[in-house]
């Protein structure tokens, strides 16, 4: 049996870390099962997934080796060395609306330290999740932004600013000769039943605000395709920067309509002044206006030719399917009352019963083994 691949996922308590880790582990379990079922063909290496975060994930992930550590810790490279980590998937980001030193330290310095530690520890490749918002929404943008396009992302939205900072740092890093492969995936607005992204918050409003007389083209991706893309880059060696987005580019008005929402046109100077005043008062803009107005005014659609040709990845959901799913989930939520809570509690209890009985069986088996010996 060849050597085990060690994958380290930072930010495993966040939704993306959790989902990528459980996806990887589920896949490896399936592979082991199929290998055991077939007669001993174990050419493929198993994987060992280490999760790292400052706090443990809300729900325990089966098979995950969790280590509670801050990636900014200077001894992080020692950990990478001692665990013989091959691949690092960095998903440790703070999605704050307002710029703050704390978030900057966490996002930008955290990423810099992770990349530094990885190159010191001889990690083979590192994967970063980024956003197409780093290109910025400008009137002079081409209809399709390629990966080489200069990064002119917004300086007001904290997360976008940090992403631009990270991307320019990575550009500098990539220009040096290095052994380590670096993959950056840039995703547009993410929509999905469990995602909590600016776009989800934007569409979840009662009446969706929109600038009057502007109808830019929009691009989206489904949350499960985000996970799929990250898993694919972990499993295959595809270094470089890629835009990853669902097929289908829609005008904003049509997107809102397909999501089953009513748009509320706002005269644009008023909208800009309004958010300026609100951000001055430090109101929770991530709820009121989660997407910056410029991003609802000018087009910032990314070109996904390289995703199809070089990365060889095609998202499962098209833009229309994503919005149709969003619409139906919204409709169901309308009828969800307390009964649904009971229902989900029921599910949770079943999960507990099953996992406990499984553990008990395992213990019994072990005891039997001991007895036999």
């Amino acid at each position, binding site marked *: 049996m060849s050597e085990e691949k060690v994958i380290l996922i930072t930010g495993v308590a966040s939704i993306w870390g959790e989902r990528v880790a459980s996806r990887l582990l589920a896949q490896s379990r399936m592979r082991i099962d199929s290998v055991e079922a077939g007669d001993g063909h174990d050419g493929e290496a198993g994987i060992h997934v280490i999760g790292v975060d400052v706090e443990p994930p809300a729900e325990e992930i089966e098979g995950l080796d969790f280590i509670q550590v801050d990636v900014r810790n200077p001894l992080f490279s020692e950990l990478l060395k001692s665990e013989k980590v091959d691949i690092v998937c960095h998903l440790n980001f703070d999605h704050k609306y307002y710029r703050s030193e704390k978030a900057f330290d966490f996002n930008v310095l955290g990423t810099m330290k992770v990349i530094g530690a990885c190159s010191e520890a001889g990690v083979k490749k590192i994967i970063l999740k980024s956003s197409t918002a780093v290109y910025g929404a400008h009137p002079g943008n081409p*209809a399709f932004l390629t990966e080489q396009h200069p990064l002119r992302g917004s300086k007001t939205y904290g997360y976008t600013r940090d992403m631009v900072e990270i991307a320019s740092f990575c550009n500098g890093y990539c220009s040096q000769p290095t052994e380590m492969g670096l993959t950056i995936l840039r995703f547009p607005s993410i929509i999905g039943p469990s995602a909590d992204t600016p776009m989800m918050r934007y569409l979840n409003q009662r009446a969706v605000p929109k600038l009057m007389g502007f109808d830019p083209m929009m691009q989206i991706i489904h949350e499960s395709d985000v996970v799929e893309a990250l898993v694919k880059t972990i499993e295959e060696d595809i270094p470089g920067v890629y835009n990853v987005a669902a097929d289908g*580019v829609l005008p904003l008005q049509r997107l809102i309509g397909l999501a089953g929402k009513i748009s509320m046109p706002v005269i644009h100077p008023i909208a800009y002044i309004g958010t300026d005043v609100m951000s001055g008062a430090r109101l929770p803009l991530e709820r009121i206006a989660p997407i910056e107005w410029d991003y609802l005014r000018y087009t910032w659609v990314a070109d996904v030719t390289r995703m199809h040709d070089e990365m060889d990845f095609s998202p499962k959901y098209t833009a229309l399917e994503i919005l149709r799913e969003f619409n139906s989930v919204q409709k169901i939520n309308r009828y969800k009352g307390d009964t649904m809570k009971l229902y989900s509690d029921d599910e949770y209890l079943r999960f507990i019963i099953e996992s406990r009985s499984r553990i008990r069986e395992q213990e019994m088996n072990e005891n039997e083994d001991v007895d036999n010996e």
Partner: protein
Amino acid sequence: MSSVDNGPGDEIHNPDMESSESISDEERIVDEGGQTNENTELDERTNTTDIDPEDIQRLVSELDGLVERLKAMDENYSPPKYSPQRLIELLEKNLDRLPLEYRMEIIETLRSSISEDLFDPDTWKGMWYMLNYYLEYQGEKFKRRLTGDYETDEWGYDPEFLDTIRPVFDFLYNKYWRVETTGLENIPEEGRALLIANHSGQLPWDGTMIGNAVLSEHSSGRLIRGLYADWFPRLPFLSSFLVKLGQTLALEENGIRLLEQEELVLVFPEGVKGIRKLYKNRYQLARFGRGGFVRMALKTGAPLIPISVVGAEETYISLRHTAMINKLTGLPFPPISLRWPWLGLVGLIPLPTKWYIDIGDPIPVDQYTPDAAENLILVSQLTNQVRNVIQKMLYERLAARQSVFFS
């Protein structure tokens, strides 16, 4: 047949043989131009008011029988459809043949019957159905628009929107500017091509008219993808309007991608310098950009098709530019013109000049490789060549033109 007896409702009273005869006589009036005697009988009965549903039934069947007989006599005959106007016309034709008292009576009946029509529930029912249908259709369309159930391509082109707006363009094209287009055969039925035109007239009407010419007069009816200037995306309504019509921002990336998708791309290399020309400089081409359009053609191998537009220059007579207004509005227009700002909004209405759009012979670029796009000398040579061709076409048309406003 029922269309006849559903009319003013005054013929169907006496269900005897006489009445059926009178109806057949009326048929004869329709057929042969009328006979006075029977008409008088018809009018005598108009004042009786008792109606029996059974009688009406019998009458209808009798009338149908009469129609059958009539058809047997003359196969080609079909009664004209009933309408109040036709009834009036028919009566007008035959009125002078009647004695005076009958005439008066007929006029009386007619007057009352037409106002009765308005009180007839059937009339309103018909109108109600029509209105309902119309509203339902429009409502469906509105609902579809609201729920995003319409088609757009990746550039934002919205065919349904274009269909809605087409009548306006057709009016401007056919009636207002009476555009005459020549050389449409130079535009390929399919496949990529780059159209290059002179820009003029303060507002980009010339682009819409070239687009309309190809859309409505070319055999393929292709959509032209115009590339617009970079100050448009900042403007509300206008930016989304242009995008819905399949236009896009003038950038080399956009142009190349469109040409690779085998589209017809229209560029105005003069850009803003062309559109804001002063009246004294009319029909003198400004600098042709930096040759970006030639690079686009060389990289994609698309033929260059020169187009000259004559007539658009005179839609506004611009006399002078004031930096202050331009700075205040952020737009390259409006300049001080003959009518603006003196006449207020009237100054914004373009003048109804006579337009000519001439489409020249294509200039192929097949002999060059895509690498030739980096050859600065070749690019500037081709730019000048295209510019000279368009300038020559302009002068030819201007020399042949008799009048600015009339053909």
